[in-house]
């Protein structure tokens, strides 16, 4: 997919360690979505990518004072 088309729906699965930004929205299947929201990945929240494990999966995000690891599949639900 070309980068321009993607910039519109960039997700937390597309960022590099060191990234800092804000969550725009959470989209995806309802079970994953509601779990992510409950963990605190809500729109407007500041979020940072701390580290990516080998194979860039899972990803460790800094959020609301703690660090939470997510698989790429789940990080793809979080638009930034």
């Amino acid at each position: 997919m070309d980068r321009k088309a993607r910039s519109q729906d960039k997700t937390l699965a597309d960022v590099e360690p060191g990234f800092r930004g804000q969550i725009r929205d959470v989209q995806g299947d309802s079970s994953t979505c509601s779990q992510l929201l409950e963990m605190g990945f809500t729109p407007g929240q500041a979020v940072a990518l701390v580290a990516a494990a080998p194979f860039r999966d899972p990803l460790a995000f800094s959020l609301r004072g703690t660090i939470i690891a997510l698989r790429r599949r789940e990080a793809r639900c979080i638009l930034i």
Partner: protein
Amino acid sequence: MHPDLSPAAGEGAEAVPPPRQATRAIALLGQPNSGKTTLFNALTGSHSRTANYPGATVEFSIGTLRESLGWAATVVDLPGIASLVPRSPDEEVALRSLFGEADHPAPSAVIAVVDCSQLSRHLYLARQVIATGIPTAVALTMSDLLGRRGYEVDARKLESALGCPVVVVDGRSGAGVPELVARAKAMAGAATLPRRPQEATADEVKAAYREVELIERSATRLAMRPGPATATHDSDPTTRAIDTVLLHPVWGLVGFVLVMGALFTGVFWLARPVMDAISAGFDTLADSIVGLAPSSFLAKLIGDGVIRGAGAVLTFLPQIVILFFGLGLMEDSGYLARAAVLVDRPLALIGLNGRSFVPLLSGFACAIPGMMAARTIPNRRERLLTIFILPLMSCSARLPVYALLLAFLTPPDRPWVGGLALAAIYLASVASGTVVAALVSRLVRAKGPSAFMLELPAYRRPQLAIIARSTYHRSRSYLAKAGVPILVLSTALWLLCNLPPVPANGLPAAEAQARQLEGSAAARLGRWMEPVMQPLGLDWRVGVSLIAAFTAREIFVGSLAIIFHVAGEDDDSVQQSLLATMARARHADGTPIFTVATSVGLIVFFIFAMQCLSTAAVARREAGGWWMPIAQTLAFTGLAYGAAWMAVHGLRAAGVA
């Protein structure tokens, strides 16, 4: 990681409970790793396990409040939950208890444990609890972590925002604990029967978070201290810096290999001298008891049956203690959660989950705590698959068996052969688990999405005293669980070999012993299964030991010693004389029983076979049906027999006797 073997192994749990009417129950509720268990220890003085791995409290512990706190109440430490809608069996355990659906009454007060270094996430849950109507007091933990960021929390403001008592506590020093108890006591009472809330909609969650963010902003303020302040929503900078290394694609793996290497080196090398000492001690004790009255049946029963049986159990205790201690160290420092992240991807490829790592690692000590730790895996299929392959992990009960057979196989001039072979055995164990998991996950279609969301707690200096105490309690409950059946069985086996008594008729001692065994109940039992043993090149005596090993693997060694009747020479250890007897043991036609081929075959059998009654019982309970242990026994014992047969005949065909 690690769950306790018994639901309540703490000392407080053993205190006699006060009369029922007078007892009030307080429940500790909070997110995983919020400091609940440390607070539980401060409240009860009980040495329940506390850990820095999310989901450590798999079954709740119950204790009674310290007397100095002036309230006769019991305290229940519930497993950590993320919300009031359960996603895994351990969360379900917590919620059943909270809403009075467990076999003890609903708590009369809840202490909601809130980590103030991540106030918004924890207040989100605390407010849900308050909304149920259960009398709730909030305990604020980890204020030192918030202080490091240059902030402090205003408990008064929080109190008026939440409408319930809020007390800053430090579970490690006990500060704030008396005030917390006094305020919880003041509000405890009959709650209107609380109802479980419905799952919140996305908009409700977002709205609830907006509210707690406002509360967070009004209740935290800059502390008067030098140095720059970071934002309240920032995670611990030191932890982030360490994680860029320990989760790094290259350095993370190097670190993982080093940590695991250190753990297993400790298990094998540090334990060795202690194990030898314990083994020698029990031999001396058994010999001196038999020596008191050499012709007495009772002295032989106690010395050769009971004491040598107990020795077989206690000999490998040092390895279990070291493994538990190492796991405790990894949990409490916070590394265990990182290790789970590092292995999530490879485990996902074979149908498991990063959360399977801790159960599987525990399985190297014992499959039972491993199966209980599997409750933290939300996805049912991944949880059952983890439980299914757990018996393939090389548990510590197999070690005495391997130690004996490898000592038999290792040439005295090449001692490294044994070490290498043991490493190969562990590799075979991991490889077989991997292959079986991959096969099963290909055969059984996945249902429902697999997820991996794990909080990585801030790194902390591990509390050695607490880890030491928890290691002690876990080892003790392990012994209590495994030790009694082993003792009973080795005694029963000794009786089987020595009943009915065959008169000696003046024959020399060795011949009288041989006759006794030939005519014993064990021999009758063993001959019956001779046809199964013959293809493996083994006779009925090994067969009886294998049957005994189905109750618990480590019995195999003691059972061989009893059946081959090892009369310890004066300064020989039991193992030395057992090795000598094994070398002498012959089939009826005069060919040796224990050859390289048959010994390797036995090792192969032990690698795969499902042999432990306690494991079968726990597998049934955790999987909710007998189908699990039955499937495990059929699959793994069948695999074990086939693989052992191939090993024996392959080696023979290759010209190895």
